[in-house]
């Protein structure tokens, strides 16, 4: 892939290649935690922070430790270990230094380890051969895009409480249909910027 500037990747990862709406990553917590706008903003912030840092860390580990020693087949297990360790570290750090932030974010942190958007961003970073700044921008954009999607969704679901949904569609089914509509709306951004 020829050099795409980090800024282009950042914008593309938010709008045209939204990690949730086009790559379907992070669906589980997207469905489970999108009932309240406040909750979703908290979770979105935590995800954005973790995804940016872990993508950058994983980039360094992959290109400076795994690749030179031909250990790339271990990348899955190393990536997930880095993510789990990082989340644990952030949790302890936040708990020690900012109890208020801990109560706002803390409950979401364990959820993040199993959020596939985080691991997915690291895997995409390898597959697409990003350099360091591109990786970090992709992580940040992915996180912001995910947050945008979940906050939009939470807003819609709060409104939906007053609407009359057909019986079999109640709950997750209608959420999927809503996501379909949001995804279609995001397709309107296509052509603005393009990455692979």
């Amino acid at each position, binding site marked *: 892939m020829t050099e795409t500037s980090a800024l282009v990747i950042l914008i593309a990862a938010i709008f045209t290649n939204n990690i949730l709406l086009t790559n*379907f990553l992070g669906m589980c917590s997207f469905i489970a935690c999108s009932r309240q706008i406040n909750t979703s903003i908290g979770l979105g912030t935590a995800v954005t922070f973790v995804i940016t840092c872990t993508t950058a860390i994983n980039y360094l580990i992959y290109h400076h430790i795994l690749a030179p020693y031909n250990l790339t087949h271990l990348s899955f297990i190393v990536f997930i270990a880095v993510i789990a360790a990082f989340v644990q570290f952030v949790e302890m750090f936040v708990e020690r230094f900012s109890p208020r932030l801990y109560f706002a974010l803390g409950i979401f942190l364990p959820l993040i380890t199993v959020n596939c958007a985080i*691991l997915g961003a690291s895997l995409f970073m390898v597959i697409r051969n990003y350099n360091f700044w591109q990786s970090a921008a992709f992580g940040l954009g992915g996180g912001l895009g995910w947050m945008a999607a979940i906050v939009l969704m939470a807003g819609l679901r709060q409104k939906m409480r007053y609407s009359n949904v057909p019986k079999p569609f109640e709950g*997750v089914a209608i959420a*999927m249909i809503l996501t*379909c509509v949001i995804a279609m709306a995001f397709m309107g951004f296509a052509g603005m910027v393009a990455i692979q």
Partner: protein
Amino acid sequence: MADMKQPACVSCGGAGLCGGKALATLKDGSWTTNPLAVQMLGICSALAVTNRLENSLVMGAALIFVCVGSNLIVSLLRKAIPTRIRMIVEVAVIATFVIVFDQFLKAFYWDMSKQLGPYVGLIITNCIVMGRAEAFALQNPPLLSMIDGLANGIGYAVILAIIGFFRELLGAGEVMGFRLLSDGWYTPNQLMILAPGAFFALGIVIAIFNHFKGPDPEEKKQ
């Protein structure tokens, strides 16, 4: 669930082949508590790889393999794993099986491996595998755990195949590369192959499941 006070069998401590629990486990995993349509686990990959039936089948096979394997190992180790670090042990076991499958795909089916891209690796964070290891394999004997893994894997694979079939049929007019809906009267609906089609298809499948099983009790409360 079968009564536990039956004479013990060697492999799993129940009577006969898993004390008659085998069938119940199989049914629970693949229908009553279907991981995808009822518990909403593992949705990410279910949406991403179902643009073609072929991909869906490979992904289903991958999940069955990983789920059975990791359930077996976790169950064998269940008395040795300290509770506090069980998560990381489970992840390590699961990641090992995923790496095995990924290397297998890369060695023998390079095209398929390319198409599935990162989603094979993402089986590690697939909540189904983790969920079964955590909720079932840690409490149950190896053979029964394997059956549970198999059941959940099948439950997942079947839904994947259904979604994959309809998305490929409506989106490209083809199934497994064979043209079923001819160009003359059917214009392929590209949207079904793209992302929104995936959400739509899964929404419909869940709604159909709900229709036959009655709505999810947890949703009702709210």
